[in-house]
């Protein structure tokens, strides 16, 4: 089943999401990128109802881009998270709500702080040091309670992430086999190989 997690460290946020695209019990694809770079220092992983996810993620991506074109600077992570939340909260009480869960991780270039927001399809937002969505969250959150260090350098952060992935593949019956991992820090966004 779909799993995504993210954690903050010293000057960076790591976002990881599995790469399977499933329909019922069938795996349709195993190289799907479910983490979008929505602005130069902002990553967003999305999971939920297939169709809704891509549609909503692209809607967010284009609107954040439009803001940047109009104002010549991008939204900061907290502002972007607030706007995304509002979009979801308005959608929730509409005729056809988006069923999308998000992790928004970014680097605030003004305060030089990494920021991570846990957002669900209801429009619930919480700024957190680490977060997870999907069945993996039941294993990963307790593991991160023990091992997460907000001051850890990138290597340690990635090591912690590997432990999370190992734990999920060990304990979860319907565990994904591949993950895509992206990092955002002062230099922007990049993908890392584990």
């Amino acid at each position, binding site marked *: 089943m779909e799993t995504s997690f993210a954690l903050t460290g010293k000057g960076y946020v790591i976002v990881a999401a599995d790469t399977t695209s499933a329909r019922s019990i069938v795996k349709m694809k195993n190289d799907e990128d479910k983490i979008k770079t929505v602005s130069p220092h902002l990553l967003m992983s999305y999971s939920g109802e297939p169709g809704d996810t891509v549609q909503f993620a692209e809607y967010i991506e284009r609107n954040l881009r439009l803001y940047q074109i109009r104002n010549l600077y991008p939204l900061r992570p907290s502002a972007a998270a607030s706007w995304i939340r509002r979009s979801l909260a308005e959608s929730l009480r509409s005729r056809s709500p988006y069923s999308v869960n998000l992790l928004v991780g970014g680097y605030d270039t003004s305060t030089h702080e990494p920021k991570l927001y846990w957002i*669900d399809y209801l429009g619930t937002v919480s*700024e957190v040091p680490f977060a997870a969505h999907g069945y993996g969250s039941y294993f990963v*959150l307790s593991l991160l309670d023990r091992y997460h260090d907000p001051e850890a350098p990138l290597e340690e952060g990635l090591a912690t992430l590997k432990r999370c992935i190992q734990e999920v593949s060990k304990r979860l019956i319907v565990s994904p086999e591949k993950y895509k991992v992206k990092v955002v820090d002062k230099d922007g966004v990049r993908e890392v190989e584990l």
Partner: protein
Amino acid sequence: MSIMDHNGGSVIAMVGKDCVAIASDLRLGNQALGISSNFQRVFGITDRIYLGLPGLATDVNTLRERFRFRVNMYTIKEEREIEPEAFAHLVSSTLYEHRFGPYFIEPVIAGLSKTPTGGIRPFIAATDLIGCINFAKDFVVSGTASSKLFGVAEGLWEPDLEPEDLFETISQTLLNAVDRDAFSGWGAVVHVITKDKVITRKLKARMD
């Protein structure tokens, strides 16, 4: 499971001698899974009014934005700050506007209102999710631990408590009530509103 209990969380407010206190836990959950231990659901409306919003977390944010907007509009139109009584009715009417598709929040209001003689009078109130106001002289409770909060508050509260004693009473009430509730806890915050200042303290709580 009710939608009201989806994210968990509880709020309590108490009256003291020329002061009021409002306290809340800090848990944000997704059913039984804990997501955050630093989720604020008590907000300052003016220097003398605080509002607690226990219930569905998405509506905590939505209502906070709504109330900020409506209080700002009130302040501009009236050219004065809103009084707690008026604010309680603003909360009530905002919720009743959504009578047949409500926000899943049961707010708690705590503040100090001005008397005609120039003094101050403590004010607390709570409403249900469609805006029925409950004015109380002693304490009001709301949230997933409300049944437990009633019991403890009934036992600990007494009239005319000074700010520091009121702080102790509300803190012990909240802490002991949320320890019996699986959906509340994970830290707590207390605001004591007095005539010339607001004392805000974070409490160490059981993290299980």
